[in-house]
């Protein structure tokens, strides 16, 4: 997607939206996040108390006494710390190395620079307010550049890719006594293992919240169209960035199969 492209794809056109790297990583990561949150909640049930600092156990002051997460949301459903950990530590590698590969790929093919760079113009109060109003009207795309992400998309993708995911990985590394010996600086970054554990949990909450909002917006923006674009890469341009009341793009006029590049 190239926002500066002189030819604006007309409404209804089927255009190439997401590159291969984005699509592959998106689904690998979706599975990893799903397994990691489910198994992580299972692990949390083993000691559902969060602390700040180096140490923290039953006699110490917990800042958050977590609820016991129910069977329908944990992996495995019945409490089994060992199996939760097997899932978690396997998919931690999928998450970590998946993100690393995606970042390298997206830097090399300039996906990040092209699509995620926040322009000064986008961060003005006026632009943010206008985009917020457009969201309330279920208009998520700039008709002048329908392939471009809107500013809230950029902010949330940047937040997840460059803050929440790296932080959840680093705090996960800080929880490992082996890695504490290998890379003590990671532990120092968070001021102790129990602080790292608390931040790890908070990152999970942020990622879960992102996922919920993300899924809601996918449905509002037209689940079929958005899903196809993340599978085949093809996405139909909504007319003037609008979707109908159900969320699918309203297609008027002839359907043009456009080639973006």
């Amino acid at each position, binding site marked *: 997607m190239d926002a500066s492209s002189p030819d604006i794809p007309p409404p209804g056109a089927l255009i190439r939206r997401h590159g291969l790297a984005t699509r592959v990583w998106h689904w690998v990561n979706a599975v990893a996040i799903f397994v990691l949150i489910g198994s992580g909640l299972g692990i949390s049930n083993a000691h559902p108390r969060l602390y700040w600092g*180096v140490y923290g156990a039953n006699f110490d002051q917990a800042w958050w006494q977590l609820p016991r997460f129910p069977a329908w949301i944990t992996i495995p459903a019945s409490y089994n710390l*060992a199996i939760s950990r097997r899932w978690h530590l*396997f998919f931690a590698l999928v998450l970590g190395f998946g993100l690393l590969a995606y970042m390298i790929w997206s830097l090399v093919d300039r996906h990040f620079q092209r699509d995620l760079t926040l322009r000064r113009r986008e961060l003005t109060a006026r632009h943010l307010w206008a985009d917020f109003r457009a969201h309330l009207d279920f208009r998520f795309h700039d008709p002048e550049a329908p392939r471009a992400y809107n500013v809230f998309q950029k902010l949330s993708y940047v937040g997840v890719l460059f803050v929440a995911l790296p932080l959840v990985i680093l705090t996960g590394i800080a929880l*490992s006594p082996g890695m*504490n*010996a290998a890379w003590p600086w990671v532990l120092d970054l968070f001021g102790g293992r129990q602080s790292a554990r608390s931040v790890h949990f908070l990152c999970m909450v942020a990622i879960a919240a992102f996922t919920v909002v993300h899924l809601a917006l996918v449905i509002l923006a037209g689940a079929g169209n958005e899903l196809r674009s993340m599978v085949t890469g093809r996405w139909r341009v909504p007319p003037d960035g609008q979707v109908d009341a*159900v969320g699918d793009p309203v297609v008027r006029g002839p359907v043009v199969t456009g080639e973006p590049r």
Partner: protein
Amino acid sequence: MSGGVIGRRGLIGGGVVGATGLLLGGCDRVVQAPATRRILFMGEEMQMGLQRALMDRDALAPEYRPEQRSPIFRANGTRDPATPLYEALRAGNFADWRLIVGGLVARPLALSLADLGAMPQRAQITRHDCVEGWSAVGKWQGPRLGDVLRAGGLRDAARFIVFTCADLYGGKPYYESIDLVDAFHPQTILAWALNDRFLPVQNGAPCRLRVERQLGYKHAKYLMRIDAVASLDGIGKGKGGYWEDNVDYDWYAGI
């Protein structure tokens, strides 16, 4: 139309929740299949391989200042073996306790608490991380396991060190094992003191293993025997420890 909208969105929302439930349930079925279970359990070898590649053989676990210690050091697992043998040893203040060092060693040893105290000592304030997620910081003191193994004359064929404990699980002694990298690590000690006192019973009196780059369940308490072996096959169920044998805990507990 609006009713239809809610109906359709509700359907999609319900579908997402339903699919989540199915997927979560699917994970449980997946792990019951031997092939997928094998793949999932390969995570342990990958984590161990990565960690060993990233850390120096003798990279030290963090050590802490005295004021960073936990006010109360939590005990977990067995808090009192309460076997007749252990009760008798305890009644005599462990004067009759001997730590047997055997297996693939040239000179089998039987070490008393006084023998352990007479060897070069290492004291370290380290963090104990339970697999459940909590941590406690305490000061441990004792001789290095490496020195004990050298005194016994470890044979070349030895690959693992197996620790047999006084406490029973299902009628059999708790046991654990580590490889020689961790056995000869400078912080791997046979601790007989916690916070400058003899080990309390709940923390493993008279002597426990400290293997500071791994989780708590590897730190065998109530030590009775140390055996050097070439393979873990034939010991317990062959997976190197009570929890490993019985509930699928990782043998390598560096994470």
